[in-house]
C-alpha cells in the first residue's frame, strides 16, 4: 500500500520538480481525453506543447503573449502570498486599457514623446483604481475580495462594451464597435525590427526581477509572506495586515492595468469587444505554475503563452476547437495542485504489515 508521511520540511527538489511533473501529467491526460473525444490526441498535445517551442518563427508570438501573463501573474502571486485573493485581474486589465485608451483619445491630435508614458501611467492608475474597490471593501468592511473582484470583472467588461459601442465608437469606423486606431505616438515601440516583439517583453522581465528583489530582499516582501502565513505573527512583529492588503491589491491591480495598456497599445492598437480574452484568469494558472515565485512565473508565463500559440496551431493541424486550450490550461492547474502534495508529503510504496 502507499504510505504517506508528512515531511518535516518541504522538499526543495520537489518544489522545483512538481511543475514539470504536472506538465508531463497534463500532456498524458490531454492525450487520453482528446483521443477519447475523437481527436488525434497525440498530435493535439504535440501541437500545443511542443510545436511552439520547436518552430523559431513562433517565439516572438510566445513572447508577446507571455508578457501580459507574466506581468499580471507577478502581482497576483504577491497577493496570493499575502492571502489576498484578487481573482478579478481581468477586470483590472480591462480598466487599465480603458484608462490608457482614454488618454489616447484625448491626445488623438497631438504628438510628442510624453503621450505614451501618460497612457502607461493612466493604465496603471486605472487598474489600481479598479483594484482599490475590493481592497477597500475587504480592509474596511471585511467583504471577501474574491467575490467582489470577480463581480467587478463583469462590470468592467460591460463598461468596455458600452464605450466601444457608444461614446468611444470610431466615427470613421463604418459603425463597427471599436475605437480609433492609436497613432504612432500612442503605440508601443517594437524592440526587434520587423517582429512583433514590443517593449512589454523586456518590461515584463525587468518587473520579474524587481518583484524577486522585493520579495527576497526587503522587509516589505517579508511582510507579505508573514501576513499570508501567520497573520497573528505578523501583527506581533509589527506588520499591518491592512496595509499589506492595500499594497498587494494596488500592486496587482496596477500591474494588470499596465498589462492591459500594453496589450491595447501593442498588439491591438485600439479597443474592441474582443479585447478581454481571459489573460487575467490564465495569469492565475501562471502564478501557480511559477509556484508564486517571480522567476518561476517567467517560466510559467512562457508555458501558458505557448499553449495559446499551440492551441492556434492545433486548430489547423488537428481541428481542435479553440476551447480546448482553456481546458488544457485548467487541467494543468489541477495537476499542479495535485502534484503539490509531493512537496509536503513523502509517498512511498510499503508492503502492508501483517
Amino acid at each position, binding site marked *: 500500500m502507499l504510505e504517506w508521511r508528512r515531511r518535516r520540511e518541504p522538499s526543495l527538489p520537489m518544489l522545483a520538480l512538481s511543475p514539470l511533473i504536472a506538465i508531463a501529467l497534463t500532456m498524458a491526460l490531454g492525450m487520453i481525453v482528446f483521443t477519447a473525444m475523437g481527436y488525434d490526441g497525440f498530435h493535439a498535445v504535440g501541437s500545443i506543447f511542443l510545436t511552439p517551442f520547436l518552430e523559431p518563427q513562433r517565439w516572438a508570438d510566445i513572447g508577446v503573449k507571455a508578457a501580459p501573463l507574466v506581468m499580471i501573474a507577478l502581482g497576483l502571486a504577491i497577493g496570493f502570498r499575502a492571502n489576498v485573493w484578487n481573482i478579478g485581474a481581468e477586470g483590472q486589465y480591462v480598466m487599465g486599457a480603458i484608462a490608457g485608451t482614454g488618454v489616447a483619445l484625448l491626445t488623438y491630435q497631438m504628438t510628442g514623446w510624453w503621450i505614451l508614458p501618460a497612457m502607461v501611467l493612466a493604465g496603471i492608475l486605472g487598474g489600481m483604481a479598479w483594484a482599490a474597490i475590493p481592497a477597500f471593501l475587504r480592509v474596511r468592511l471585511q467583504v471577501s475580495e474574491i*467575490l*467582489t473582484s470577480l*463581480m467587478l470583472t463583469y462590470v468592467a467588461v460591460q463598461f468596455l462594451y*458600452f464605450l466601444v459601442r457608444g461614446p468611444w465608437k470610431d466615427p470613421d469606423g463604418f459603425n463597427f464597435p471599436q475605437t480609433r486606431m492609436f497613432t504612432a505616438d500612442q503605440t508601443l515601440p517594437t524592440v526587434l525590427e520587423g517582429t512583433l516583439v514590443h517593449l512589454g517583453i523586456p518590461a515584463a522581465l525587468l518587473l520579474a526581477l524587481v518583484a524577486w528583489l522585493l520579495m527576497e530582499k526587503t522587509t516589505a516582501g517579508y511582510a507579505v509572506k508573514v501576513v499570508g502565513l501567520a497573520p497573528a505573527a505578523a501583527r506581533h512583529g509589527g506588520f499591518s495586515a491592512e496595509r499589506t492588503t492595500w499594497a498587494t491589491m494596488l500592486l496587482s491591480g496596477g500591474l494588470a492595468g499596465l498589462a492591459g495598456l500594453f496589450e491595447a497599445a501593442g498588439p491591438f492598437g485600439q479597443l474592441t469587444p474582443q479585447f478581454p480574452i481571459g489573460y487575467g484568469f490564465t495569469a492565475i494558472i501562471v502564478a501557480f505554475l511559477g509556484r508564486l515565485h517571480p522567476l518561476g512565473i517567467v517560466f510559467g508565463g512562457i508555458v501558458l503563452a505557448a499553449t495559446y500559440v499551440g492551441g492556434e496551431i492545433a486548430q489547423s493541424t488537428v481541428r481542435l476547437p479553440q476551447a480546448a*486550450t482553456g481546458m488544457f490550461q485548467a487541467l494543468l492547474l*489541477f495537476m499542479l495542485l*495535485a502534484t503539490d502534495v509531493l512537496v509536503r508529503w513523502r509517498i512511498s510504496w510499503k508492503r502492508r504489515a501483517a
Partner: protein
Amino acid sequence: MTSAILVSILMTLVAASTPILLAALGELVAEKAGVLNLGVEGMMLCGAVAGFAVAFSSGSTTLGLFAALLAGVATAMVFAVLALSLNANQVATGLALTIFGIGASSLIGAGFVGRTIPRLGPIFPAALSEHPWLRVVFGHDILVYLSLALVIGIGFFLRRTRPGLILRAVGENDASAHAIGYPVIAIRYAAVAFGGALAGLGGAYFSLALTPMWADRLTAGRGWIALALVVFSAWRPGRLLVGAYLFGAVATLELQAKAAGVSFLAPEVLAMAPYLATIAVLTMMSLGRRTGRLDAPACLGKPFSAV
C-alpha cells in the same frame, strides 16, 4: 397593469431565481461542512452542457437532468480529491474548477451551439394552470418545486437531525469532530458531492428550462452570485430563499427594462446591475454585522488532515 403581465413577470422571477437558489443551497451544505468550493460556476457549466448534450441526443429532458446531476457530482469529486484528500488550497482548487468548467463546457458544447431542444415543462397538468393566478402556483417545472422543497428539507436536516448536527460539527471544529470519532473527510466528500449535484441541476436549468438552446458560458457568472448569496444568507436556507428571489427580481427588472426598451439606460449598464447589486448586498451584510464572523462555519476553507 393587467394581471396577465403581472403573472408573466412573476413567472420570469421564479425562473430567474431557481438556478441560483439550487446552486446556492448546494454550496450552503458544503460550506456548513467547512468546505469552500469556489467552483460553483464551473460545476454549473458542466451540468448545463451535460444536461443539454444528453437531452439533445436522447430527446429526454429527464435524462438530461440526471446527466446534469451526475456531471455536477463528478466535477465536485475532482475538487474533493484535490482539496480534501490532497489538501490543496481550496480557493485555488475552486478557481481551477471554474476555469475547467468554462473550458470543458465550451469544448463539449462547440458542436451544439445554436441547437435547440424541447423545454423542460411544467409538471402539473395544464388544466390546473389555466387561470393566470393558478399558473403562478401550478405552472412551474419540477426544479422549481424541488428547490423550494430543498429549502425546507435542508433547514430541517441541519437544525433537527443527527446527521445534520454532525455535518455542522465537522464545519465548526474539524479537529474535535475527528477526536470524537467522526469521519471528517468522508462527511465533507458527501457534502461537496451534494453541492455538486445541486450546482449541476442549477446549471441544467439554464440549458434545459430557461433558454433551451446551447450558448457558450450561458450561466454568465451566476455561480459566483450563488456563492455571494450564501454569505448574504448567513448560512441559513430560509434567508437564502429570500436572497435568491431578490436577485431574481433584479434580473427580471433588467429583462423587463430591456424588453420595454428603456432608453435612458444603456443595455450594458443594465447588464451590470446583477453584479453591482451583489457587491452592494455583500457590503450591506458587512455593515449590518458588527461582531465579526460569528455566522460563518469556523473551519470554512481550512484544510484538515487526520495525520
